[in-house]
């Protein structure tokens, strides 16, 4: 099987040495990875930029910043970490994790904000 770029390391002798995926399959993925990388850099710039805009209240500023951060995180998780196209079980396993995370953070916030008054 010929590869588009020949490596100078001696060809592997044992195990599963044939490329299990088509080279083309990885080529278009390569373009996707570069694209996502560029998108992340742009979003980083955007995050910095919008932090100097006032959206009405401090809470709103924070919300906008975190919204962008969540979008970036979703890109990393879906494309770089192959969640999109991975076995659904892994994604499904992360759902309870996120539920517990939000329970921890949400209930803590509620406990601070809403307490009995002496």
């Amino acid at each position, binding site marked *: 099987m010929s590869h588009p770029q020949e490596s100078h*390391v001696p060809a592997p002798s044992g*195990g599963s040495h044939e490329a299990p995926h088509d080279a083309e399959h990885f080529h278009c993925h*390569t373009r996707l990875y570069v694209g996502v990388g560029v998108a992340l*850099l742009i979003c980083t710039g955007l995050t910095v930029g919008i932090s100097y805009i006032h959206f009405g209240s401090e809470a709103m*500023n924070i919300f906008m910043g975190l919204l962008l951060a969540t979008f970036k995180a979703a890109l990393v998780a879906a494309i770089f970490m192959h969640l999109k196209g991975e076995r659904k079980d892994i994604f499904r396993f992360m759902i309870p994790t996120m539920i517990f995370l939000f329970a921890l953070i949400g209930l803590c916030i509620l406990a601070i904000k809403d307490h009995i008054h002496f």
Partner: protein
Amino acid sequence: MEIPYTVKARPDTGLWNAKIGVWLFLASEVMLFGGLFSGYIFMRLGAEPGTWPHGLLNVPVGTLNTAILILSSVTVVFAWAALKMRNFRRYQLCMGTTIFCALLFLGIKLGYEWPVKFHHFGADIKRESLVKYEEYLGNEHREKEGLTPRLTISGYLIDEHGHTLHQADYERLRAEGAKEIRVKLDAANADPNNPKNDSPRFLPVPMSDKIATIATEDIQYASMYLPRRSSYFATYYTITGLHGIHVIGGIIVFIYFMLPVSARLYRKDPEHLANRVEVAGLFWHFVDLVWIFAFPIFYLL
């Protein structure tokens, strides 16, 4: 005795062992950083309005570091793709670049950002003494503009000769019962009524030459910008510090993947090495993910 499904996927689950293992580990890491971030939320929500600092970190440098980490995320996924395409030279190039970016990230953080803050001094003024230092705080102007009061005087702590002092010197001064301290002021304290100094700016403003004398009895709490300085810096150093430890862990693993032992594994069973690099890459992307949240939370918001 061989453990099955180390390299080849088990048919009914469609996964090989380490892939499940690393996602489980990442789930626990989500909870770990989640606990720390809930600490941040507690500190911030519990702080008196207006006391949560802004503009004390170098945003351009932080942005650069973010870009470096994102780039390293791209190169590590390229390294994995190169292995899957059986291009070992390209793999080495990409993995090497990843390690370089990671080291650069650490170097900037530990070699520049943190040391700069360790020498930066801040003194919180007691509420009842704020009026005395109005020329450095500009609170009349801030009240007119509807802004929260400025409670801190910051800059370099200096001695009579103008030499910059460090935390140990400050503590010695306190132990000796010094009645006053001298601070070479940050721009915001040197010119507090200037509207340009009302909120943080992207490019850091150079330090002024103005020197203020503060009576120690007027100080609520003061120190260099170390973890002890405030709950903001406590969470900043702890979260970025733990993140940095994870970066170091990643670097160690990536270096291992560049050693001859890994090249030997590639020759014997390249898919096995590809799987290992994928698993390490997943960890690395998680490290990037944490930074994607940590950067705006501490530097911007």
